């Protein structure tokens, strides 16, 4: 079903390599995401997918379309850029939120957890 | 070479409110006078357009002239067409009339109860007119949604707990029905490959069996969506609360909305499942007939059980809808003619009644005035200017209100001589004599049922209206005369006078309805007109 009549073998191998690396990293990241015990550990896992997971597949795509199209196209690179720039936003905001929630619940082993529990800061009603 | 503007008259009932609303949005909320004037001018234009369309549709020799307008210059089964025939034009005119009446009524106070009243009002009219004029099934969906969206806004106009609660139910039900609509339309498209109503009518008779039953499934689902709008029992419990909760002028125009469901059932049922539909002819007519009867019965019971006038009016909408559904289910040409007459008269009546109720109840106590309560509790300070309604007070208020109330009662109960009676008589007489007077055909069981239930509903309305009228006008403590302005009373009187005019010119009106019904039952003229329309040739026009 793939219209790749004009793709040379080396290119096919290269594209496949990048593809498999990218997809593999993403899968590993997601497995880690599933396996890790705490939220803060899990936070690391998806970045495999957003870094070289994405990188691999974007590269594969650029290679593939540049070679089949006969000219260099790199608009996929934009995806890489955007993902790299936007993922930190999500992760930062989320991590800080998790920190807040853990602190306000007084979880052990969380930096700053005691600070919230100081007198004057009692406010947690533990609904929800 | 340009065609005259009048060639585009068919689309005027849609564009006039659309453009008006766009202008209204850009006007500042505080410029109420300007907004009112723009809105009023639009309705006058709309009325003029509708009358002109009516004149065209009647034609010279009494034969219907069906005007087809191909949007984007794409011919019929492919592009969207607007079709102005007797029925759609009549509905558009009725919309314009109710619209004008409600708008005038609202100018006394209601249009100030929240932002964007005029805009939403115009868009509601646009939705209604579009739905009446379109010849395309999916475009119908779009206009249904335009109308519904505007109706949500209008129903919630003025806010307050009652409205919001009723509005919530109303919205959920209609979202559900929109989904059914989509399922139905897409199924029909999947089976027949077309969305044009006329084209559908030509394709249905040729469908093989397997396709036909799937088409019927689609039509069934679509039918449920329409029946929700028309208010058939047991899909109508949302209707009385919603219509009651809405502000009076809104309820008054809502009276037209339930008729849209009826209109579309009438049109599609007769066009798609009329006698020419082959194996599918008469599909689901029992549902319409007995569902309609159940609706009348339920509506009548509700009318009896209503303490508040608003609910009574809401249930009257159901009675009216049910009667029409049952009449469509009977599916005889003369019955349809009577039903059309009934449609017009009952819509005018209910609309007038909704407005009247607000005026009548105004005298009872401050609690009845939802507006005042809402304003007091939740109103933003910037919302309401201090000006109390300015305008000429109605002289002889109580007497006028009383007379109008009595007329409404007579109309709702179907008592003679007003059109409520004439229309019921026309329907029943046609049911008893399907082949015309003098042909002693056996009277069908359905006829007995309809007769019985129609009489029962009339009786229920009579009892309830007397009860309510006595309570309101006779038993109330003297001295509390409501403040009613002339511009509030005028639309009520106007609508009621129209019913009187319908009585006096009943012969002419019935002749129109007969011809309309004939066209509906023999839709080949409509179909030929729609499918036969040629595109305007581009080259011909471009070379000067």
């Amino acid at each position, binding site marked *: 079903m793939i219209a790749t009549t004009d793709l040379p073998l080396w290119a096919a191998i290269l594209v496949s390599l990048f593809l498999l690396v990218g997809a593999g990293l993403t899968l590993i990241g997601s497995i880690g995401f599933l396996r890790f015990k705490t939220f803060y550990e899990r936070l690391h896992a998806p970045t495999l997918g957003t870094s070289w997971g994405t990188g691999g597949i974007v590269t594969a795509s650029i290679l593939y379309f540049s070679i089949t199209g006969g000219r260099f196209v790199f608009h996929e690179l934009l995806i890489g850029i955007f993902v790299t720039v936007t993922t930190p936003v999500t992760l930062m905001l989320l991590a800080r939120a998790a920190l807040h929630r853990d602190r306000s619940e007084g979880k052990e082993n969380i930096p700053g957890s005691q600070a919230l529990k100081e007198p004057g800061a009692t406010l947690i009603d533990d609904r929800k | 070479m340009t065609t005259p503007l009048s060639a585009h008259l068919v689309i005027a009932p849609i564009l006039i409110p659309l453009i008006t609303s766009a202008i209204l949005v850009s006007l500042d909320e505080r410029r109420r006078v300007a907004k009112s004037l723009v809105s009023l001018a639009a309705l006058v234009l709309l009325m003029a357009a509708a009358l002109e369309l009516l004149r065209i549709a009647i034609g010279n020799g009494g034969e219907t002239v069906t005007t087809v307008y191909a949007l984007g210059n794409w011919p019929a089964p492919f592009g969207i067409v607007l079709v102005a025939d007797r029925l759609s034009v009549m509905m558009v005119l009725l919309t314009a009339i109710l619209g004008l009446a409600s708008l005038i009524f609202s100018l006394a106070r209601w249009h100030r109860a929240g932002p964007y009243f005029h805009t939403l009002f115009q868009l509601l009219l646009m939705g209604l007119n579009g739905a009446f004029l379109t010849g395309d099934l999916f475009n119908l969906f779009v206009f249904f949604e335009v109308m519904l*969206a505007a109706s949500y806004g209008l129903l919630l106009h003025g806010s307050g707990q009652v409205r919001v609660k009723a509005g919530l139910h109303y919205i959920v039900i209609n979202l*559900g029905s929109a989904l059914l609509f*989509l399922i139905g339309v897409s199924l029909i498209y999947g089976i027949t490959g077309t969305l044009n109503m006329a084209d559908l009518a030509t394709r249905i008779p040729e469908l093989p069996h397997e396709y036909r039953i799937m088409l019927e499934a689609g039509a069934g689902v679509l039918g449920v969506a329409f029946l929700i709008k028309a208010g058939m029992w047991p899909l109508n419990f949302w209707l009385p609360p919603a219509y009651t909760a809405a502000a009076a002028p809104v309820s008054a125009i809502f009276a037209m909305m339930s008729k849209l469901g009826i209109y579309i059932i009438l049109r599609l049922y007769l066009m798609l499942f009329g006698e020419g539909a082959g194996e599918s002819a008469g599909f689901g007519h029992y549902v319409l007939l007995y569902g309609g009867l159940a609706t009348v019965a339920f509506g009548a019971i509700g009318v009896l059980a209503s303490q508040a006038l608003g609910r009574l009016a809401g249930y009257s909408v159901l009675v009216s809808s049910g009667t029409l559904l049952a009449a469509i289910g009977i599916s005889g040409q003369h019955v349809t003619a009577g039903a059309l007459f009934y449609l017009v008269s009952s819509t005018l009546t209910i609309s007038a009644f909704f407005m009247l109720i607000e005026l009548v109840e105004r005298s009872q106590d401050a609690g009845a005035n939802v507006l005042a309560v809402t304003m007091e509790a939740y109103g933003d300070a910037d919302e309401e200017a201090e000006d109390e309604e300015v305008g000429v007070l109605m002289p002889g208020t109580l007497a006028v209100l009383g007379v109008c109330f009595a007329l409404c009662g007579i109309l709702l109960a179907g008592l003679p001589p007003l059109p409520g009676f004439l229309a019921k008589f026309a329907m029943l007489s046609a049911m008893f004599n399907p082949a015309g007077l003098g042909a002693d055909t056996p009277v069908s069981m359905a006829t007995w049922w309809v007769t019985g239930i129609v009489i029962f509903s009339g009786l229920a309305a009579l009892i309830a209206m007397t009860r309510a009228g006595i309570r309101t006008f006779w038993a109330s403590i003297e001295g509390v005369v409501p403040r009613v302005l002339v511009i509030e009373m005028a639309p009520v009187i106007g609508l009621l006078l129209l019913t009187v005019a319908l009585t006096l010119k009943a012969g002419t009106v019935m002749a129109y309805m007969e011809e309309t019904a004939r066209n509906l039952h023999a839709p080949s003229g409509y179909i030929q007109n729609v499918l036969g329309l040629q595109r305007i040739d581009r080259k011909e026009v471009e070379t000067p």
Partner: protein
Amino acid sequence: MELVLAIGIGIMTGSGVWLLLRPRTYQVIVGLSLLSYAVNLFIFGVGGLKKNAPPILPDSGVVNPATMTDPVPQALVLTAIVIGFATTALFLVVLLASRGLTGTDHVDGRETFK
């Protein structure tokens, strides 16, 4: 593929209907959203399923219609998506208003009826 999609549509419909019949406004709005996915997919499906046959013409503009998927259902779905979005927004605000005015998020505006 048809089978998978059909089952998927069925499950989305089922979940949506279940939620639609629940008493909390939030459940209803989620249910309606699920139902509109299902219905959109259904509309889309009636055009027939074709892979890699988007109704986008080549530069020449000439095309064999048989190689392309039916664009009409897609156009209908687009309209349906927009209208669905609009009505979801509206419903959301109305349910908020109802919650504000009645104090509860029950669809009937009170906890237990009667």
